[in-house]
């Protein structure tokens, strides 16, 4: 495993039970459905109060380069948000003047390669997944965003809440004019 891969995917722990794995897999699918449907009210309910939602900007560097571009939260990022900051971003859609969101973008999130593991904290689980997010808008504008995620989900009553998400987009140059999407 290369150094970079270690940054992106922390050491793995013990696999969760079939039941937990099923429950959390369904959870990330449900979350994807909410994002596809722009059901942000429902989505925010799935986010924990102490959320860290992080998608670092990653430069192309040589393998020998030891710069930690993933864990260093002081570097440039697409997202480096807590829950309040996510809500601020979402409030733009409530203003009625987010012109570029009308007509709406058509979204599909495909979530795959889900693995669920135990963590050292009881009731918190690490979930690996890959995403393929497709956007299409207006006549023929389209783009694809592909990458991996590492999440921490916490049991909250009968459901789970997202505590931490690290998104690694595989682009160097974002091949899109904006990022009006959550991954």
């Amino acid at each position, binding site marked *: 495993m290369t150094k970079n891969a270690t940054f992106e995917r922390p050491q793995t722990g013990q696999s969760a039970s079939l039941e937990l794995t099923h429950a959390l897999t369904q959870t990330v699918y449900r979350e994807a459905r909410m994002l596809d449907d722009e059901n942000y009210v429902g989505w925010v309910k799935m986010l924990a109060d102490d959320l860290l939602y992080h998608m670092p900007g990653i*430069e192309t*560097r040589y393998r020998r380069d030891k710069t930690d*571009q993933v864990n260093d939260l*002081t570097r440039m990022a697409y997202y480096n948000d807590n829950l309040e900051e996510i809500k601020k971003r979402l409030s733009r859609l409530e203003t009625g003047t987010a012109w570029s969101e009308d007509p709406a973008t058509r979204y599909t999130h495909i979530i795959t390669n889900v693995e669920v593991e135990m963590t050292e904290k009881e009731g918190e689980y690490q979930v690996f997944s890959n995403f393929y997010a497709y956007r299409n808008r207006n006549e023929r504008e389209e783009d694809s965003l592909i990458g991996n995620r590492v999440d921490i989900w916490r049991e909250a009553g009968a459901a789970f809440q997202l505590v931490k998400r690290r998104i690694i987009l595989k682009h160097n140059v974002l091949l899109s004019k904006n990022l009006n999407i959550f991954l």
Partner: protein
Amino acid sequence: MRIERMGREPEFSQYMDLKEGWLDRRIFSDAEIYEEELYRIFARSWLFVAHESQLPKAGDFLTTHMGEDGVIVARQPDGSIKVFLNSCPHRGNKVCFADAGNTRRFVCNYHGWAFDTGGELKGMHEEYCYDEIDIDRKKNGLKQVARVAGYKGLVFATFAEDGPSLDAWLGDFRWYLDMLLDNEDGGTELIGGCIKSVINANWKFGVENFIGDAYHAGWTHDSGCRSMNNGEPFPPVDMENSYHASVNGHGWEFGTEGVGDLFLLGRPKVMEYYERIRPKMAQRLGEMRSQIFGSVASASIFPNVSFLPGISTFRQWQPKGPMEFELKTWVIVNKSMPDDIKDEITKGVMQTFGPGGTFEMDDGENWSNCTTVNRGVVTRHERLHYRCGISRQIEHDTLPGIVYRGQYNDANQRGFYQRWLDMMEADKLDAMPERPEPRLTGVSETRDVPGLFAL
């Protein structure tokens, strides 16, 4: 190096009448005009290539583009900075594939030609195959740009051997730049990393938006402003006490209310920080500049760098064909700021002017549609309106440049396209007119000039 362009030389003045206030739409999509821009503007201008803080140690390097030509910018053992083509003199392959890093050598993957961080050829794979007569190592290094120079942390390079020095190129605009680059002891630095995105639009749309288009903000960005500030709309514009200032194609539009851009960042701690240092800023830069800083403002350095003083996004519009540019964005902060203020600013910039930012998202959509729509074979022959504020030019005893009253104005945009036209038509850079006549010729440190000039 001499940059020569063979073939016909179109009359570029046919594409605009800036006294009347119109532009021809073809300059935003025509492939031949774009090629000419690469030769006449990008191969002859002083272009931003790095901030000194990106290259703190010997061997630190980054790769970037001057126009569409790839270059390496590298810190030398003696502390100087060199800029050379990222292209092996043997077959032309790239010698560096990383965005940034630290190295002792740039080695070509093709035949193993190896260059030191100054670009000098140091060795080749199976060197014995070359007889002495075959190669002069001194003449086969990586091609250096003609000139490299800095202004308060920003590093610029140009392919043009002749033409103005960087100080003369920036001219009286330095007086404005000091508000961004020299408002506190220690100068500025860029936060680590660079976010790059592709926008299917002509590069000039980005530059002209930041050089003077305060007008779009209250409409395009109503949603962005409200989202960052608990539903509050843009503060009203004071047309009496806000200005456009244009110097040789550079431009800064600004209010004098002192807080507008800081408000848009949506970070109260940052606002408090600047209020704390404002008295010192006034001592340092004079009362006028300390009141301009932090106001609703935006600026561009000709031809392709822009920033928002107060919001702290710093960006470059890199041309990638007539209908595409790559937007590179950084966050610029004062070195002496405490870490928590740097973090607040960085997060604020990412939430407003990153690709997912509440302001940025609406811009790319506009520029991309302007570009593609302007291309229609009928549409392209219709003129575009650039006449806003055309009669509002004033003489101001404090502010250098061509100054217009009222922040809602197309004046700086007209100044930008005037410089564009001057460069497109000039055979020799030295023959280009100064617009306006500089007031600060011979002044080497504009920080100490409070802004009282004899007219």
